[in-house]
C-alpha cells in the first residue's frame, strides 16, 4: 500500500512535467505554423498599410524594437554593471544590503507600473510619447537583472586572483577593473544579452511611453513602433491579414529571444567548463 502510494505520487510528478510541456509545445507549434506562412520579404521591409488594405509589414516595428533595446542598454549597462561591482566589492556594508534589497524589489515590480513611472517623468514633461521614454522604461527593468548577475559573477572569480593583484601593489580599483572584472566579463556580457533579449518581448511598459508609430522613425524624441505593441494592436483587430501578421511578429520575437538564450546557454556552459579547468 505504501509502495503503491509512493509510485502513484512519482507518476503524478512525471505527469506534471508533461502537463507543463503541453502549452509549451502548443505555443511553439502555433507560432511557427501560423507565423511562418505569413512571413515574407515585405514583412521585414514595409510599414503597415492603412486600415483595410492587405499587405504591408512590420519593418518599422522591428527597427523600433532594436532602437528601444539600444537605448535601454545604453542606460542600463553602466548603471547595472557598476552597481554590481559595488555590491561585490563592498558586500558587507549596510548600504549594499539596501541596494541589493532595492534591486530585488525593482525586479518584482510589474512592468506596467514601470511604464507609468516613465510616463510621469519623461512623457509628461516632454508632452509627447517618445522612444526615449520607452527605452528608459525598459532600462529600469534591465538594471536590477544586470546588477545582480554582475555581482554573482564577480563573486565567482577566484579570490586568489584578487589577492595576487593586491600583493603586487595594485589598488582595489585597479584589481577590480584590470583583473577581476575582465575575468568575469564574458559571463556578464552573456547576462546582459539575455536580459536585453527578454526585455525585447515587453509590451506593457511601451504602451504609453514609446506608444506606436506606423512609419519608419529613428527620431528618439518621437513615438516609435515596436514589434510587441504592433502584435498587440494587430491581434485585437478584426482583419484576417493583420491577425496573420500578428502571428508572424510573434514568430520573429520568439525566434530572436530563443536564439539569444541558446547562445547565452552555450556560452555559459563553455565558461563553466573553463572555470573547472
Amino acid at each position, binding site marked *: 500500500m505504501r509502495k503503491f502510494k509512493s509510485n502513484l505520487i512519482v507518476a503524478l510528478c512525471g505527469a506534471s512535467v508533461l502537463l507543463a510541456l503541453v502549452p509549451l509545445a502548443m505555443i511553439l507549434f502555433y507560432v511557427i505554423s501560423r507565423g511562418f506562412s505569413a512571413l515574407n520579404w515585405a514583412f521585414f521591409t514595409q510599414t503597415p498599410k492603412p486600415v483595410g488594405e492587405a499587405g504591408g509589414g512590420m519593418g518599422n516595428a522591428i527597427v523600433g524594437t532594436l532602437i528601444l533595446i539600444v537605448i535601454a542598454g545604453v542606460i542600463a549597462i553602466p548603471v547595472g554593471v557598476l*552597481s554590481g561591482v559595488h555590491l561585490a566589492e563592498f558586500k558587507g556594508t549596510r548600504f549594499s544590503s539596501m541596494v541589493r534589497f532595492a534591486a530585488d524589489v525593482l525586479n518584482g515590480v510589474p512592468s506596467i507600473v514601470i511604464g507609468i*513611472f516613465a510616463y510621469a517623468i519623461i512623457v509628461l514633461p516632454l508632452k509627447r510619447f517618445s522612444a526615449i521614454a520607452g527605452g528608459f522604461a525598459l532600462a529600469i527593468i534591465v538594471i536590477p537583472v544586470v546588477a545582480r548577475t554582475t555581482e554573482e559573477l564577480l563573486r565567482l572569480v577566484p579570490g586568489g586572483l584578487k589577492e595576487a593583484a593586491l600583493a603586487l601593489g595594485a589598488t582595489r580599483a585597479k584589481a577590480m577593473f584590470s583583473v577581476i572584472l575582465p575575468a568575469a566579463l564574458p559571463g556578464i556580457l552573456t547576462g546582459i544579452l539575455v536580459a536585453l533579449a527578454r526585455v525585447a518581448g515587453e509590451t506593457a511598459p511601451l504602451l504609453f511611453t514609446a506608444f506606436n508609430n506606423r512609419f519608419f522613425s529613428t527620431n528618439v524624441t518621437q513615438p516609435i513602433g515596436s514589434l510587441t505593441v504592433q502584435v498587440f494592436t494587430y491581434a485585437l483587430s478584426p482583419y484576417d491579414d493583420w491577425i496573420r501578421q500578428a502571428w508572424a511578429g510573434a514568430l520573429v520575437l520568439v525566434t530572436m529571444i530563443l536564439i539569444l538564450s541558446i547562445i547565452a546557454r552555450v556560452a555559459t556552459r563553455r565558461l563553466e567548463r573553463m572555470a573547472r579547468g
Partner: protein
Amino acid sequence: MPIIKTSEDRALRLGTGAFAVFVVLLVAGIGVVLTQQSVLSIRKFGLAFWTRSTWNPVSGEFGALPFIWGTLYSSLIALLIAAPIALGIAIFINEISPLKLRQPLSYLTELLAAIPSIVYGLWGIFVLVPIVRKLELLAPEWLKKVPLFTGPPLGVGMLSAGVILAVMVVPLTSSVAREILRGVPMTQREAALALGATRWEAIRIALGYGRTGIIGAVMLGLGRALGETMAVTMVIGNNPQVSTSLFAPQYTMAAVIANEFTEAADELYLHALIEIGLVLFLITIVVNALSRILTRRVVRA
C-alpha cells in the same frame, strides 16, 4: 579587508556607489512619483475608491473594487493550478528523473519563462479561449447553478485568465522550488530511506525540511501573477464587474491601466488609473519581500 586606503580606492567606492544609489532612488522614485500623480483621486475618493464598484469615466465616478477583485481572483486561480504542478516538476527533476534528463527538462521548463507575455496573449485569444469555450459548453445544467459556473459560456473570462497565468507562473515557481530542494541535505533523504521509507516518504521529509522556502517559491509566483498584464488583458474579457463565476468576463488592475491609460482624457481619470498602479506596486513589494524572506531563510539554514 585590511588594505591601505588610497584615494583611488575611495573613488572606487564612491564612484560605483553613485550608480548603486540610482537603484535605490528608482524604487523610492516610483513610490513618490506614483503618489504625486494620483493625488487627485486619493483626495477625492479616499478609501472608498477601493470599496466602490462604479467605474464611469464620463461622470467622473471611479471605484476600483472590480479591478482589485479580478487581480486577486485570477491570481488565486493561477496559484491553485500552478503550485501543485510546479512542485511536481521540481520534485520530478530534482528527485526522480534520471541524471541525463535533468538538464534538458529544466531547460524546457525554463523556455516557458522566455516566451513573451504578448505571445501568450496571442495564443490565448486564438487557441486557449476557443478550447475553454468548448469546455464551458460542456457544463451540464445543474453545474451552472453553482455560483462558480454561472453565466454564458463566452470563453473569454476568469477561467481563461487563470489558466494562462498558471502557465506563465509555473517556470518561476518550479525553478525556485528546485533550488530549495537542492538546499535540503542529502542525509535527510538517506536517513529516511535507510529507515525503510518509500521514495515518496523520503521526498516528503525533504519537502518538510524546505517547507518555508517552498511557500516562498509559491509567493514569488503570486507576485508575478498579480502584475502580469498583456496576456491577461487579452483573455479576461475586460468587463469591470465583481463576480464569483469563472465564466464571467472580468477585469484586473494591470489590464485596466494597459487599456485605458492613453484614453484617459481628464486628470482625475488619469490619477485614478495611476492610483491603481500605485496600489499594485505596493502589493507586489509586500508579496515579493515576504517571499524573499521565506526563501532566504531556508537557503541560509
